[in-house]
């Protein structure tokens, strides 16, 4: 498929669906985020499996993170992560200045409160991709001005 419009529309439709289906029940916000995150997780796993089919073994954690920032991000969002930072103790911050899933929402602070909805799936993607490479993690995202976005990856030591 040469086009990403269907994916973007499908993604917002998925978000819509998850939130609408919860309205009737008494589920709260957190459950929806978890649901979306889990869907992303599964997709991230599948993608990573396909993507690393022919790549040599990774040297270390940092190498894996670089792979996420470059290849994985390029495949999913057609660009690389703009900035990767780490404290060398298992915390990584991935910054994307024009995050694809927020690009069509707003450029500024408008609709900022809606951003968690649209980031949960992506957090799951990253967590799933990492999990597929044997790295357990917690991934969260934060936005201060759309469409820039920071993902924080906390590696869980076994």
């Amino acid at each position, binding site marked *: 498929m040469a086009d990403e419009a269907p*994916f973007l529309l*499908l993604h917002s439709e998925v978000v819509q669906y998850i939130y609408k289906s919860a309205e009737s029940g008494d589920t709260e916000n957190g459950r929806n985020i978890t649901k979306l995150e889990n869907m992303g997780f599964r997709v991230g796993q599948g993608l990573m499996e396909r*993507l690393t089919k*022919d*790549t*040599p073994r990774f040297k270390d954690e940092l190498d894996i993170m670089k792979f996420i920032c470059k290849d994985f991000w*390029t*495949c*999913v969002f057609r660009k690389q992560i703009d900035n990767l930072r780490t404290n060398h103790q298992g915390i990584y911050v991935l910054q994307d200045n024009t995050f694809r899933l927020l690009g069509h929402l707003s450029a500024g602070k408008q609709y900022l409160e809606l951003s968690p909805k649209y980031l949960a799936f992506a957090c799951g993607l990253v967590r799933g991709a990492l999990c597929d490479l044997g790295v357990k993690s917690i991934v969260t995202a934060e936005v201060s001005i759309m469409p820039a976005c920071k993902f924080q990856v906390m590696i869980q030591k076994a």
Partner: protein
Amino acid sequence: MSRQSNRTTDSKKMNSELFTLTYGALVTQLCKDYENDEEVNKQLDKMGYNIGVRLIEDFLARSNIGRCQDFRETADVIAKVAFKMYLGITPSVTNWSPAGDEFSLILENNPLVDFVELPDNHSTLIYSNLLCGVLRGSLEMVQMAVDVKFVQDTLRGDNVTEIRMKFIKRIEENLPAGDE
């Protein structure tokens, strides 16, 4: 940095896999949420409709295609331009009804079902039903009421995947009094 050199991932291909897998995750979730397949089919159609009414704008803006003269032209545009653009496939158009108001799209390889196998207990699930909604929704936005449904599906053991489209009527534009 030796790894960089031997990586040859086709980003277009990956992008379609992203779509396929995301769609799969959605169907899985729907099957969990609803008890019977009929409900899932309905929900997929509804979501497809929502996508269709928005996708048509993207399509018209980018393809530079004007209003279709007849249903045959519509069929051609759908198969050769729209499907090509969004799913990377070109279905064949066949089985025209004598009146020219009904035809079939035959999908050789449906990208939505790339990694899919239906379990036995979902025999009535129309996995790609989203597509019907998309077609219906987008045509409605260009004043065509159309009935769309799957009549054959390789996932359910048929030889080909066939989408049947039937023209119902032209939707009259409801202009507010005094306009035009």
